[in-house]
């Protein structure tokens, strides 16, 4: 019985609705946070920051956002790429229009702009459901990308149509632009991840979150017992887009530095985020992180292994990568359709019983 909850008694309901009701978990959580915020910045180098950590963090935010919409509220969306583009472009516009505004503010504001756009595209969800809705959200995806591509105002009339992030600082330290230190990039993303994960957690454990889940599990019944579907769905769209927008803003400003709508925010990105959410676990915050890490890191890992270690030709390696990723996705679904998060939960369950079989 390595992992125990016996002997853990909770005498009040607030205690019981804690994020980590088991003391061991809580302790571990603080330890991890400490390492992430204080330890990692000292050792992170360029490669780790730019190719591993920052993308994982940025994608995690997007996955968190989509998980709120799809995992908690049950509305499948394939418009994530488009909403990320909204975040990125509003961030760019804000940064260039108000050069003195703190970049952290800009990023939060882009989140709000995206939330508004999300609400607009969320309206049809009142009528359209399931895969029909999923396909319908592609309208948002294509329209938004077209818009940013086609209206020069969005890219400040630059000749190429690309947007490039200007350099901005926080406390005198550059966080955007080519001269940013890797640890600064990492920390700013970490900051957003932390704040947003905390918000997500709060929302999902309170009545807003329950109204989402009710809509997800059975929308008609939810309405009959008093959930306002209009409100719940639009809230979910807004919050989800808020997250996705911030992720897009970070993707542009901190991670890539320069983007073009059709390439950086294409339909593939939408699918990618959806994979993360499903592989990680629908309706699980931890799952969003696990999924993002899985989808971002697996190809990198495979590439390092196949090309770096085994020196396969790049094309064979890449094709094999696809084959392996595809097969792994299927394998995971077969082993555990409810994602990595559920797998972790089962594992814990077994650990709790261990060494007794049942």
């Amino acid at each position, binding site marked *: 019985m390595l992992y125990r909850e016996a002997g853990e008694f909770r005498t009040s309901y607030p205690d019981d609705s804690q994020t980590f009701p088991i003391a061991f978990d809580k302790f571990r959580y603080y330890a991890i946070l400490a390492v992430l915020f204080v330890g990692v910045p000292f050792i992170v180098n*360029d*490669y780790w920051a*730019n*190719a591993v950590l920052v*993308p994982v963090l940025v994608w995690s935010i997007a996955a968190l956002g989509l998980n709120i919409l799809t995992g908690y509220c049950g509305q499948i969306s394939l418009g994530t790429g488009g909403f990320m583009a909204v975040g990125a472009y509003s961030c760019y516009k804000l940064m*260039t229009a108000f050069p003195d505004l703190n970049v952290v503010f800009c990023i939060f504001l882009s989140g709000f702009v995206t939330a508004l756009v999300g609400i607009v595209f969320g309206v049809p969800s009142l009528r359209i459901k399931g895969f029909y809705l999923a396909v319908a959200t592609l309208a948002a995806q*294509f329209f938004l990308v*077209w818009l940013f*591509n*086609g209206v020069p105002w969005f890219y*400040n009339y*630059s*000749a*190429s*149509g*690309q947007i*490039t992030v*200007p*350099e901005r600082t926080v406390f005198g330290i550059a966080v955007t*632009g*080519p*001269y940013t230190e890797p640890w600064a990039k990492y920390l700013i993303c970490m900051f957003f991840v932390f704040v947003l994960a905390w918000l997500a957690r709060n929302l999902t454990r309170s009545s807003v979150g329950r109204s989402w889940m009710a809509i997800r599990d059975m929308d008609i019944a939810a309405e009959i017992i008093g959930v306002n579907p209009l409100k719940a769905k639009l809230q979910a769209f807004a919050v989800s887009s808020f997250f996705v927008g911030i992720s897009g803003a970070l993707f542009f400003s901190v*991670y*890539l*530095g*320069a*983007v*073009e709508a*059709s*390439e*950086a925010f*294409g*339909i*593939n990105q939408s699918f990618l985020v959806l994979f993360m959410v499903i592989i990680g676990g629908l309706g699980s915050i931890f799952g969003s992180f696990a999924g993002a890490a899985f989808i971002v890191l697996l*190809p*990198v890992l495979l*590439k*390092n292994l196949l*090309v770096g270690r085994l020196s396969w*030709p*790049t*094309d064979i*390696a*890449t*094709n094999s990568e*696809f084959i392996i990723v595809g097969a792994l996705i299927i394998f995971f679904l077969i082993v555990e359709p409810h994602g990595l998060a559920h797998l972790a939960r089962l594992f814990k369950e077994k650990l709790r019983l261990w060494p007794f079989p049942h």
Partner: protein
Amino acid sequence: PWLSYRTGPFSPSGIPAGDGFHDYFSLLNERDGGIGGVPINVIDCETAYNTQKGVECYESTKGQGSLLYQPLSTGITYQLIPKGTAEGIPIFSMGYGRTAAADGRYFPWVFNFPAHYWDGASIAIKHILDLNGGDIAGKKITLVHLNAAYGREPIPTLQALAEVHGFEVDFVPIDFASSQEQKSQWLDIRRKKPDYILMWGWGIMNAVAIQEAANIRYPMENFIGIWWSGSENDVLPAGERAHGYKALALHRPGKGAPIFDDLQEYVFDKGLAAGTGEHAGTVLYNRGAYGAMLTAEAIKTAQEIHGVAEITPAMMRDGLENLVMTEEKMAANGFPNFGPSFAVSCENHGGGGEAWIQQWDAHATEWKLITDLIQSDKELINRLVREDAEKYAAENNIEPRDC
């Protein structure tokens, strides 16, 4: 490193180009033991034409002593320009990337010789001027382009040229996602009957556009593509009907150059070919090999300047910046008269801005050069480049260096 894409939607173009690049360096390593006695290690990194993977490639390979990046994608080039600049690794985007990078004062680490997109636009118009005895006032010219940064590159140039020469120009953007179905665009073109069509397309869009042009019986000889819209991949699906299609050429097509004998002897016959070897002589293969040759020359130049064999990225940059391509050098490398002669300088990273026009002969299934080298309207182009570079510099607080 060579950021290649042998997979994904653009693999038909990425494969031959990658083969050419690799094979040339394999040849140097096999035949000459490298450059100046130092074997060249070409790091291949697969991007599938995807920006993010490109960044990952950059980050993962830059620690391995990379001298220079050939991103082979305009989108990735944009990512790498600030990164390379900040970290002091030169970026060589041959005939693509950011046009303004031709201005070496603002882009000290970025090179796009021998010619860039705006040169291309100007050269195409020059060709049309030549066909019409120098007067194209009132003619209608349509640009069919990919609706992306790359495709929009020539628009300002064409507008500027239209003012100068008094032709009408209009633009038909095609989104990548719908580039397989261009019927409405081509019906529109059929109705408007432009005198000439230019194309800035990529991937499957080229092939479909040429098919559709053939379908509406557009006279192929009035249809001119940029050098990225002029490979065998683009014309073959249309078969016979693509006969007469023209495209700009940065270098010679075909297997005529002596270098191919060496490649056969030292690379293909030894089983060292990067791919199947069967692409040798195709436009994109030659582009890869040509790019490799230019790179090798720049390395040699760098070695000469600094007097060492093992060079650093900074030296590499100097090599690129002082590269002088002459006919003799090309001939010595087995590429006689293969590309234009040009000289790179501190101020000019864009080369001479010359290119040929090639035409597709569907019966012989080969490209043929039909003109001499055409020089772009450098005065106009340089002005545009300077303006754009200055704008970029102003946005990003970059001070020009003195040249």
